[in-house]
């Protein structure tokens, strides 16, 4: 009922090709954006913004990156963490050399370095695919991790081996470093994520995005129809790694403030992969749903036993989280391989026909 699109006629090609052809979607998205840009900064506590919203947005962006590669182009990757690391370290070096250039531009530019790394480690995808490729992305993961430890130049020869985020200002307001308030950082992140999600949505439904999906669905057929695997696969790697790189830079500069190699280890890669699986492969909405789910679930698991009076150790809740996420992954793969995004879609279908579920549209 809510989703009835009867009466919404498309009278021009532009309307037909619109990103959100249905009025209700447009209203819904506007409301979400309004809440995100105005409501949350005004009303939410610093804790909520700093520990829930900011990580959620960072991981959403990383999940978009991985989803482009795995969900849309069909190339399974286990190296997300390392590509995020490349972005973070690149941004750190850039802001060391060019302290006067606006940090937001540098964050956006640092993704280029991780895109280059992505292309380099994506080269094997031209010869191999599927599981074999997944293992070669492990090579990227471990090799880059090793670089982050061994190449002292990357962290300016610090004794600690960690990168510390310096304070950078925009219009005299600190946006990175210790003096930046969560609200300011949140506003920067939400702007970057909104912009990049919009770009992704348009790229994915455009020529390049469709060529990725053709490669995913059947590479030989795609090749016969004139898609160049070289260009399609490598551009998917580049694009995906760019998003991961920006997410990594945002993670360090806007969220955790300082990072060591552990921030980009293989568990991190898996975490993002879980977000993509649970959220839904091949769905942008799924990236956000998956990131929210995986990030918020541990918080809930931590909170619930306290509410009902149980006092669990921190380690116990972490293990419980592991078990629950593992079970959920298997559950989703069995019951709904397309993840939360698909559930939302099914719900939408139901809403369209309610209260007459047997009526044909």
């Amino acid at each position: 009922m809510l989703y009835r699109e009867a009466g919404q006629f498309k009278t021009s090609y532009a309307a037909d090709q619109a990103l959100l052809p249905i009025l209700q979607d447009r209203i819904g998205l506007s409301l979400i954006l309004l809440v995100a840009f105005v409501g949350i900064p005004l009303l939410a506590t610093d804790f909520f913004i700093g520990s829930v919203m900011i990580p959620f947005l960072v991981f959403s962006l990383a999940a978009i990156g991985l989803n482009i590669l795995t969900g849309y182009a069909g190339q399974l990757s286990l190296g997300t963490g390392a590509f995020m690391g490349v972005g973070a370290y690149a941004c750190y070096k850039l802001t060391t050399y060019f302290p006067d250039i606006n940090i937001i531009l540098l964050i956006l530019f640092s993704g280029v370095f991780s895109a280059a790394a992505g292309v380099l480690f994506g080269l094997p995808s031209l010869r191999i695919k599927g599981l074999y490729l997944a293992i070669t992305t492990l090579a990227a993961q471990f090799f880059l991790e090793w670089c982050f430890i061994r190449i002292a130049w990357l962290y300016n020869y610090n004794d600690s081996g960690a990168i510390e985020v310096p304070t950078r200002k925009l219009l005299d307001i600190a946006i990175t470093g210790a003096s930046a308030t969560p609200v300011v950082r949140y506003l920067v992140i939400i702007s970057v994520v909104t912009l990049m999600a919009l770009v992704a949505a348009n790229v994915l439904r455009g020529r390049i995005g469709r060529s990725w999906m053709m490669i995913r669905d059947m590479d030989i057929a795609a090749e016969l129809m004139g898609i160049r695997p070289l260009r399609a696969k490598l551009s998917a790697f580049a694009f995906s790694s760019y998003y991961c790189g920006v997410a990594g830079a945002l993670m360090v500069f806007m969220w955790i403030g300082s990072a060591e190699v552990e921030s980009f280890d293989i568990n991190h890669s898996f975490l993002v992969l879980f977000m993509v699986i649970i959220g839904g492969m091949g769905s942008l909405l799924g990236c956000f749903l998956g990131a929210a789910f995986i990030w918020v679930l541990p918080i809930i698991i931590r909170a619930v036993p306290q509410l009902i009076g149980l006092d669990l150790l921190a380690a116990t809740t972490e293990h419980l989280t592991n078990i629950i996420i593992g079970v959920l992954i298997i559950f989703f793969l069995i019951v709904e391989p397309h993840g939360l995004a698909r559930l939302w879609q099914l719900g939408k279908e139901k809403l369209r026909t309610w209260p007459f579920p047997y009526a044909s549209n």
Partner: protein
Amino acid sequence: MDILHSIFVAPFIDMGAYPDFLLQVIWEGFVAGVLYSLIALGFVLIYKASGVFNFAQGIMVVFAALVLVSLHEMGMPAWVAVLVSVVVMGLLAIGVERFVLRKLVNQHDAILLMATIGLTLVLKGSGQLIFGGEPKPMITRELGLPTGASDWEVFGGVVIFQHIDIAATVVALLMVLALAVFFSKTRIGRALRAVADDHQAALSVGISLHQIWAIVWFAAGIVALVTGIMWGARSEVSFALEIIALKALAVLILGGFTSIPGAIVGGLVIGIGEKLFEVYWGALFGSGVEAWFAYVLALIFLLFRPQGLFGERIIERV
């Protein structure tokens, strides 16, 4: 020129100058390789029979070893604990087949892989929950495994052999032989090979896929238990092993996903190769190259031979 010299000449001069040290390095690499092979063996068993790429093999090794050690801590005699651990791995196999594999029949490779990643998380979480996260020593002496070391004087130097390493090699050898006999001589083994060859044909002659999958996961569980005992005896039983076990994936690429000899040869190549590389070339890169050598070697190897050393040729059909 200096760089070329230190890459192509100096390491070999070092090797020639101290052959006893070279031998020691090769032996260390060989033993590490045996353990990689053992983990890879578990992967190959399951992949051959069910086409599932079992990412959880590494954590199964940790899990099996933890069960064994904890049972012993609770006061069971060592050999009873081994038997009970075998039973636990059997139950795990049945559970996995019943609740995961059976529901995912005919799904895409990547989906199955991700399901085993989920399984990894479950095993990891429950392992830590039940047995605690801290490392535990393996009950080496109680199991009757040898400790200590012998020296062997050779090339004017001394090479040290840890007895547990020799035992690991012998056990690995025995296990591979046992598996070979099991596969070729027993009724179940032949059924396993039939399933590996063609699921549908196997079904049509009355082989139960469910049964075979449970058996093969059980076999992989036993391999995991043995690997866990051996690996735990060399260092200790801890969840860090899981990351090391990922190296077995590189071994698989080298050897091919479906070949047992490939898993063994690949394991040895990677084990010896990474030790040699670390010792003789590592200084050039800064140390710690062991962390990625296996994967990069596998990656380069893949570019030339995508199906691995002994793998079946990959034929693409439309």
